[in-house]
């Protein structure tokens, strides 16, 4: 299994508007709180307008080389194109979280590396059922955390608290709840 405590190289990918860049920011903030080396690199430009949006988050104990991740140790994929684009590149022993609400085929037909752990579940559906519309991203993040334990649980909560802007304080509790739902899913 990948050594997430030494280095987490995560790609978060889906449609624009699914909140993956935000989920990536929370992950990056976990690294910041832990005092690790951190980089957060979004895709940008026309790509962001209606197409796929993705970001690469690196947390490491060493200086980070390229912030573009070509061989991730972890992947959150919230649509089918993202699965097809990134799942095969996940390193042996890595972890993949797939929201099968939109990526209905899961990792089916993708040649995965040895020992890659896949958690495929309907995150968007869960979010809507729980009255947490728009927080499937955080549910996926919680799931990835439960697979990889890339930081302490308190650190994750602190990062979420930091990332929800003061003006939107009322969204803090739902975000924390979504994270827990992901862990339990």
């Amino acid at each position, binding site marked *: 299994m990948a050594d997430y405590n030494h280095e987490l190289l995560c790609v978060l990918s889906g449609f624009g508007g699914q909140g993956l860049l935000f989920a990536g*920011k929370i992950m990056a903030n976990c690294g910041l709180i832990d005092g690790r080396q951190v*980089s957060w690199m979004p895709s940008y430009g026309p790509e962001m307008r209606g197409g796929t949006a993705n970001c690469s988050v690196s947390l490491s104990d060493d*200086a980070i080389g*390229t912030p*573009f991740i*070509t*061989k991730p140790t972890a992947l959150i994929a919230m649509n089918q194109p993202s699965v097809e684009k990134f799942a095969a590149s996940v390193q042996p022993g890595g972890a993949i979280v797939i929201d099968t609400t939109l990526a209905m085929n899961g990792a089916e037909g993708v040649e995965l590396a040895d020992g890659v752990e896949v958690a495929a579940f309907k995150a968007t559906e869960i979010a809507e059922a729980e009255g947490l519309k728009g927080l499937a991203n955080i549910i996926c993040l919680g799931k990835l955390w439960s697979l990889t334990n890339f930081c302490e649980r308190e650190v994750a909560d602190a990062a979420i608290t930091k990332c929800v802007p003061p003006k939107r304080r009322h969204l803090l509790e739902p975000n924390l709840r979504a994270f827990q739902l992901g862990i339990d899913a």
Partner: protein
Amino acid sequence: MKGNEVLAEAAMRAGCRFFFGYPITPQTELAAYMAKKLPTIGGTFLQAESEIAAINMVYGAAAAGARVMTSSSSPGVSLKGEGVSYMAGADCPGVIVNVQRGGPGLGGIQPSQSDYFQATRALGHGDFYMPVFAPSTVQEMADLIYDAFDLADEYRTPTMILADGMIGQMMEPVLLPPERDLSTLPAKPWATSGSRMERKHNVINSLYLSPNKLEDTNYERFERYEQIKEKHQRQELMSCDDAQIVVVAFGAASRIARTAVRDARKKGIKAGLLRPITLWPFPTKAIDELCDGGASSFLSVELNMGQMVQDVRLAVNGRASVDFYGRTGGVLPTPEEVLQAIEKVAAGEPVVQSAEPGAVGSLLPHPKHRKSSYERGE
């Protein structure tokens, strides 16, 4: 914070109170940040009607003695060439940011380093240079723009931050430099800020119709350039002490090269990384030392078709072999590709200029394997 926002914040901390620009991807966050914050600290943000107008506003504000900057991306920087040349000719300090994208022409918007020549070989017409800084981390975005303002004032020259879409868009932890007390900024007795009838009038000008006079001003300016070359070459060396193969890379490419050099070391290849922080002046002294220290090969890794490699060749001056590996158009090489190039150099084989088709991270097929539209019968 995103790299672009850090540039803006650090510039204001360095005492910059005036920003003139025109919208272009991928530097928009910088202008947006300036638009929001500058008016709240007594500064001026102005979106000009064009890049040409923007750089001439910078020229005017610089002539009036202010710390001033503009930012753009490759196609926009071409338009600024005129004003930068005038600033150089009239000895006006100011900072120009280029968050590079792929070219030529409208090109693309993905990270690229295709403006190395433009930045280091006089941006615009005429016989001049300007110091060019190449940040490779978000932290350096902050540190280098701070230095760029100081150097600009010290030598009365425009300076440039040559960044790229990758460093501009990414977020990394950053320690921001301290807020500059504006009263501690260097005095500019030459500025056209109004004589107040207390001094002889000042003239900011780059026109010298007498050839001898023009030659004198150019000689004087190049003396300043010599001082800059002597005192302000900057670079970072990584595992270069016993390096036989030195990878030379700046900005985004250096991030990728860093990973590749580390991987090469793991494989037992004596590779090191020379990362120029100043592109002009180019760190020739460091290359001298590396040559003296036994480096036998240099490999320039760039996001273009081979521009900085010319400076590497000039600096190496036949003392070692010089190879090039690059991707262009906004395609980023993977560390694996760069590692392959290093291995080729180690084996004494020629470096292939592009990734093999289907290689990880290769978004384009190898040119050799690509058919023209004619061949495809279109």
